[in-house]
Structures are given as structure tokens and as C-alpha cells.
């Protein structure tokens, strides 16, 4: 039997000829579970992150970050070791809830995976004085914003994909 006259109906799998290699259909899954990194947000409890206090404070309505007790540096993101002097004597300090827009864009076509259903939305860099951070700017559009505009903190509760009560920061125009 040549390759060309081999039957395609599975009859070659009936063991009728000892020359035929055995055949079988195998299945692969239609979907593969993707890595947890696709979840934007940290697991925010003490078991999973050394900066759980940051999230606890945010859950209580306060935006905070770490300050180094040795060199005085204020960090963002919050740290467990000071990147300036390597001290681990850090304390949480309050950040202002109002800042200014350092720059911004309105994302239309290329949102990060996980936020594609939200387009269009505004994202920007917010200047809080000692630190700057990247954030979603809600209730805003590109045309209505200017660099330097005041914005204030908004806290969002994260629904899914874990059963933890998670929170994150966004900003809105003042």
C-alpha cells in the first residue's frame, strides 16, 4: 500500500494489515487558561504582597506611599526597601488626593488587554508633588483636557477574577 492509495476513512486502522501504522484521533483543548499576569492588579493581602498596607489605606479611602526614614526619599510605587539608600526603615505617608495632569491621551484603538472593552478612555500621568503616577482619568475626554488641569482621586472596587476585595486608584477632573 502506498501513501497515495491509503484510505482516509479510518479503515486502515482496523488492523487488517500489519504494515499499516496505527491511527487515532487525539483532542486538544479549545481554550487554555491564561497566566494570572493577565489580571492587572496585585493580590492585595499580606499573604501576597509586602505593600498590603498601601492597599489597606486605599480601601480606607486614603492614598499613601512609603517614605524612607533614613534618607527621606518619597517613593512611588510604595517600596519595601528604599531604592535610594537600601534602608528598610520605611513609613507610610499620605499623598495629596488632588494633583495636576502632567500629560494624557485618549486611548481609542490599543487599550491594554483586559481594558479593551472600556475604549475610548483617558489615561494620563498625574503629578502629586512629591511623586507622579500613571492612572485612568475617568469622566473626561481628550478635547476637554489640558496639561496642568487639576484632578482628584477616585477609588474603584475591582470586581473579579478573585474573591478578594480589591481596590485601585483612578482620577477625575476637579
Amino acid at each position, binding site marked *: 500500500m502506498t501513501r497515495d492509495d491509503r484510505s482516509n476513512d479510518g479503515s486502515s486502522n482496523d488492523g487488517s494489515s500489519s504494515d499499516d501504522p496505527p491511527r487515532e484521533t487525539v483532542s486538544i483543548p479549545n481554550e487554555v487558561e491564561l497566566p494570572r*499576569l*493577565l489580571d*492587572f*492588579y*496585585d493580590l492585595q493581602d499580606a499573604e501576597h504582597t509586602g505593600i498590603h498596607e498601601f492597599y489597606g489605606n486605599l480601601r480606607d479611602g486614603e492614598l499613601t506611599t512609603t517614605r524612607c526614614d533614613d534618607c527621606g526619599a518619597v517613593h*512611588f*510605587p510604595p517600596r519595601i526597601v528604599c531604592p535610594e539608600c537600601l534602608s528598610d526603615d520605611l513609613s507610610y505617608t499620605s499623598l495629596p488626593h488632588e494633583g495636576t495632569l*502632567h*500629560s*494624557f*491621551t*485618549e*486611548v*481609542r*484603538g*490599543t*487599550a*491594554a*488587554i483586559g*481594558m*479593551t472593552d*472600556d475604549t475610548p*478612555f483617558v*489615561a*494620563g*500621568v498625574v503629578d502629586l508633588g512629591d511623586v*507622579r*503616577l*500613571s*492612572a*485612568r482619568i475617568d469622566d473626561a475626554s*481628550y478635547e476637554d483636557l*489640558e*496639561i496642568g488641569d487639576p484632578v482628584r482621586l477616585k477609588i474603584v472596587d475591582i470586581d473579579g477574577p478573585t474573591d478578594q476585595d480589591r481596590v*485601585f486608584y483612578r482620577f477625575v477632573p476637579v
Partner: protein
Amino acid sequence: MWDDLPLATMRDVYVIGAGQSPFGSFPDETYLSLFETAYENALESVGGELDPDRIDEAFLGTLGVGGRQIGLSSPAVTEHLGLHGVPTTRVENACAASGYSFRSALTAVRAGTADVALAGGYEVMTDTSADQTKWWLGVSGETEWERTSGTTFAGVYAQMASAYLDAYDATVDDLSRVAVKNHGNGAKNPKAHLGFECSLEDARSAPGVADPLNLYHCCPTTDGASAALLASEEVAAEFDGPAVKVAGAGAASGRVGLFQRESLTSIPASVQAGEQAYAEAGVTPDDLDFAEVHDCFAIAELLAYDDLGFCERGEAGRLLREGVVDPDGELPTNTSGGLKSKGHPIGATGTGQVVEAFSQLRGEAHVQVDDPTYGLTHNVGGSGGGVTVHVFERTEVDA
């Protein structure tokens, strides 16, 4: 620091060959077959026969988009080329992967651990879904505190564009002029991904991606590979044709996240890498006859003009409006078509720029500059987390 390095003890290094595969969308190619094409073209460009057995080491850049052979991808490539036993390393620095693989090969030949080194890069990007591509590019930005704002690189560079247009005399039309110029060049490059011309009106009226950037202000995702052969002066002297010397090299890292930077209107790693490369080469930007700069988004090309000293800070728009960077201008930039038109196969982009510099200095470019002596390549990883700058010089080899 780099300015304390004992340059005098380093050997001179030459690019004796450079080649690329076509850049584009190739469902019937793999990263292996694309790199094989680039490698063969590099070997063919050598002025004489280079026995592949003389390649002492290989450095290959790739981000590994799609998650194919991420582990040991470099040995998989060198094995495919028949370079059995050659030590090889995958170099990963996102979009600057092969700027850094070139730097690694340069360092090996400078140091004398290799007499001939292969540098290159490859990427296959068009066989993954749009969401997968976003994921792979998204995780090259700052993943923990920037990605939570929902941006990918378009959104990140868009914020740099907003800041630049606010701070300086530059307009959205200047961003569009990058597309017009680079497509004009890429239309003459048979290996370009998007080898068509576009008018200022086309570029103005494209759909928005991340304000103020529209589709024509963004490079495509591309399949492709590129390769360069570096050699010591002694080896280079064996071959015919104009010698292309690596006159200066610079590299720097920078803050990965935009929010951690002092300024959004400059990429500090570009400034530092540029200063180092100019100092090593003993040249100033005025000495350059052409440049290939990293134009993943139109604003990136404007930032490059400022950061590399092509103009006073904030004057990048003027260079475009006055045609200084056009093929017939004082400093033709991205004569290959740049990332915008030639395409941006992430890991292949850095050595792809070297291919254009090599062609220009040998007088074989598709958009040829008149009798160039010095050219520069500038490769940026992400939004500025890693940068390489190389200055090339056409010269004579002393055997």
C-alpha cells in the same frame, strides 16, 4: 562610568557584512527561515568568501512575541544555520533587542574573545491575535503601575506626544510629516513592510489610535529578521569593498515607566547613549551624513532629533518642515523607510538599522545619500528603558 573606560585597549571593529529578510507578513515563514534569509544575505554582502566556520560567537535578539521558542532560541537558530557548537546567546531588550545583540558582538570582537561575531535579530508577530500581540507588547512596558492605566505603547508614546506638543513649537502635522517622509523612503525599499507612499492628507485623516496619535503615527507589527557580521581589523582587511568601521558605540538604560521620569519630552537614555557614541567616534551630530532613528511612533522620531543633538531642544518639528531630514536634506533620516514604513519586527529592528547604515556607506542603498562618511543608528527598547546608539564610518582598513 563609560567615560572612564580604557578605549585605547579595545580593538577596532568593522561590519564586513549585513543583510535582512524582507519585512512584512509571512504566514509561510518561521523565525528560523526568516533568519536564514537574513544570514545568507549578510554572507552574500561580504566582499569575498567568508567561511562560516570562522564565526566565533553569535548574539541574537528577540522579544519572543507569541511565546514560541523563548528558551534556547539562539541555539535553535545557529543549529538551523549549521553553526554547530558556536557559543550563542539570546539578547532581550524589547524593541532594542538587536541593538543590544549588536553591542554584545561588538564587545566580543573589541575584547578579542571573537575575531568574527554574528549579531542579529528576528521576530514573528503577525500570526498571533490582536489581543495576544497587545499582551506581548504590553508586558514590555512597566507592567505593575503603568499598565494599570490601560495603555500599551501607543498610549505611552501618545502621552509623550501630548507633553511635547504642549511644550514646544510642534504640531500634529509635524507628526504626520514623519509618516510622509518615511513612507516616501520606504516606497523605494523592496524589503519594506508598508512600501507605499502617503500624502500629508492621508496621514492627517487616519483613524485615531491614542490621541494625538493616529494610525499613520504608529508603525506596524511585522515579521522579519536581520543580521550583521562583525570582524576585527585584521579579518576585515582580507575582504574587498569599502570598509565600514564601528566608530562609536553608546548604550544606556532608563526608567521603564513613564511616570518615573523627570521629563516626558526627552528620553534620557537616548541622550546618554548618543553622547557616548559621539565621544567614542570623535564626531558631533554635524559630522553625520545620515541617520536611522527609532520611529516606532512619530513622536519618537521627533524626540530622537532633540535627544541626539540634530537640533536645539524643541526644534524637531522645524527639521521636518524645512526638509532637513529629507533624502536631499542636510541630515537624511530613515532612508530605509524607518520602522513606520519598513516595519518593526521587534527583535530584528536594531540590526535592521545596521543593514541600512552598511548599505549607505557602501553606496548600495535604495535611497542613497551622496558619498556619506558617517552614519548613526539609534534603537530604543520600549518607551526608553534601553537604548543603543552606534556611529559608523566608511574608512580604509590597514592590513
